[in-house]
């Protein structure tokens, strides 16, 4: 019979290996999914994961898209990873993404049609500020009133979306447009346009910022006291308290940071690939970034890889829609499955499977039975004990 035996220490090897196992399992399950939709699973996997990168006819278009799609996912996920490590769950990044775009975009439109090198940096700063302030709402409500940040940040996604819908039919509507509920197109406003820097690569300012942030977050997490505080709070609330970490400050910092990052991503997306504000602007990056953060093991380098993979599923999904008639939502199903499988194989980090021939004689609880697993505090599963037989 099989038995889960707790490891004395989380396995680092498993921590690195399980994401790959999850990807493989997802591909397998995805194959079944596509087969059930009447698509040849091998074709589907090829279109999803191989053609966007290597197919001679489409790759020249899809390869640059990889960075365009990955940049916002990675930037948002980097911000989220700090909070997730510390047990502070900001799941409203989508709302902060939208608010960053609204505030940053409004700043740009306010000075339209002024030209100058200062326009775009100002918009970037405004975008980050917009996301930051939006994320401070759950932070303040959590600190001051103990309101659950998960629910508040999520509710604010719907509020942000309605603000967006209200603005594009109102104050931010393009005065030179044909009454469409859309803002002016930033791609037609040179000083504000987040243009491709090197032709054919998809690299815009946001991609550069993403690369810098990956490095920066890596250094902060490893070497800076803030990174230490975040990691400590995630492992043990009490230890963090004894170390003199103020939980309120930590909440504000983690939420603020993730909000600012999401706002940045929103502004880069708006001024670049999206071009204009409309109700079609939010694409769910804020939610997919949650998967990216977990798949990347809340580690900056891991997030970089996970973000690229997730971007690939977006592009592959579009391609599959076009070439194999696979429904658009298949991508979302795929991404959801990936997170499921990741969580499913996660226990291998903290447990090992032992095969036992004879069932244990005493399955009742011994006195002093203790479970230390406290999932609210961190992304890892419970840390002690064994399966009840």
């Amino acid at each position: 019979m099989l038995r889960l035996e707790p490891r004395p220490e989380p396995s680092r090897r498993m921590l690195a290996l399980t994401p790959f196992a999850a990807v493989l399992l997802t591909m397998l399950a995805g194959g079944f999914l596509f087969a059930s939709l009447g698509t040849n699973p091998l074709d589907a996997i090829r279109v999803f994961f191989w053609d966007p990168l290597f197919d001679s006819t489409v790759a020249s278009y899809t390869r640059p898209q990889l960075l365009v799609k990955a940049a916002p996912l990675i930037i948002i996920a980097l911000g989220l990873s700090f909070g997730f490590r510390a047990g502070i769950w900001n799941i409203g990044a989508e709302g902060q993404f939208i608010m960053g775009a609204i505030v940053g975009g409004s700043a740009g439109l306010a000075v339209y049609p002024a030209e100058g090198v200062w326009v775009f940096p100002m918009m970037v700063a405004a975008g980050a500020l917009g996301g930051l302030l939006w994320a401070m709402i759950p932070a303040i409500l959590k600190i001051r009133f103990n309101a659950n940040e998960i629910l508040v940040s999520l509710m604010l996604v719907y509020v942000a979306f309605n603000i967006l819908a209200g603005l594009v039919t109102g104050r931010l509507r393009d005065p030179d447009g044909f009454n469409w509920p859309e803002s002016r197109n930033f791609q037609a406003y040179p000083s504000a346009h987040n243009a491709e820097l090197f032709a054919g690569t998809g690299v815009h300012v946001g991609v550069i910022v993403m690369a810098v942030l990956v490095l920066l977050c890596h250094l902060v997490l490893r070497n800076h006291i803030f990174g230490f505080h975040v990691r400590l709070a995630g492992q043990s609330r009490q230890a963090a308290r004894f170390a003199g970490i103020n939980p309120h400050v930590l909440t504000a910092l983690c939420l603020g940071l993730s909000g600012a990052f999401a706002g940045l991503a929103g502004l880069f997306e708006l001024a670049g690939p999206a071009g204009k504000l409309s109700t079609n602007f939010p694409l769910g990056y804020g939610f997919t970034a949650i998967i990216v953060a977990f798949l990347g093991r809340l580690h900056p380098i891991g997030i970089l890889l996970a973000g690229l993979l997730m971007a690939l599923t977006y592009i592959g999904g579009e391609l599959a829609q076009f070439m194999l008639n696979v429904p658009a939502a298949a991508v979302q199903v795929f991404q959801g499955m990936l997170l499921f499988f990741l969580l499913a194989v996660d226990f291998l980090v903290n447990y090992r499977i032992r095969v036992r021939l004879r069932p244990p004689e005493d399955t009742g609880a011994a006195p002093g039975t203790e479970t230390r697993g406290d999932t609210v505090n961190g992304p890892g599963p419970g840390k002690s004990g064994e399966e009840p037989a």
Partner: protein
Amino acid sequence: MIDLAGLSPAALVASLMVAATPIMLAAIGELVVEKSGVLNLGVEGMMIIGAVCGFVAAVETGSPVVGLCAAIAGGMLLALIFAVLTQVLLSNQVATGLALTLFGLGLAAMMGQSYAGIKPPPTPRLDVPVLSDLPGLGPILFSHDGVLYLSIAVVFGVWLFLRQSRAGLVLRATGENHDAAHALGYKVVRIRIAAILFGGAMAGLGGAYLSLIRVPQWTEGMTAGAGWIALAIVVFAAWKPWRILIGAYLFGGVTMLQLNLQAIGVGIGVAYLSMAPYIVTILVLVIMSADRRRASLNAPACLGRAFHAST
């Protein structure tokens, strides 16, 4: 357009009961789950799966009852994934719940793709004999569909179960202190799985109520945060079943008022009025959580904590 006097209170009450029912069903299910010590954030995902399963089954068979049953089954199936992951493989409950929602939204969109714009078979209204003929109150309270009455019955049943039955006591014990419950010989994992499945069934039914009775139509992402509001209502209710009733009707009221104001055209943009339910949810959360001591007294002590029996 009509002026404010055009708001008929009778119609408003009747429609707020309808608007509240999906949230109430999902919330009472989640209450049982949380009472057993499990935090399932996947309510939204289970609801939308229920909505699409119910819709597809009802359209294909022509029977709304089959649709409702399919919705329950769909919600339970999704809940089963959550149960296996969190109870057997001990995954993080917050992350797994989120995964459930993301996966559910995607899967529902895929399943419902070819069903957009179709009308489902109508669900017959159940007029309570005699009572529905009462002048004034009759049409408001006693002339609804069966599921609405069922939802109220479920709230009452859960109250009775948790408060009066031995099994309810065991369930609460599991949520308050899983180690003690385990030491007494109760199967913590099994009890929790059963609770999670009940939560899934109720969320699924609530979702189907949306797509089959309240709207009635299938549109992608039609739950629009109802599952999350249900989670907030459990907090609002301080984990007490009868308060779920109040909470859900309060939200139904806000939703209907907002919709009616939109119809009248009060000079506030539609988009800004649509925010109302979400903002009210936040306000309610703030008010209910502000008193830290009372809030922590009400919440099940083992909420969200993984259980693992050690020998």
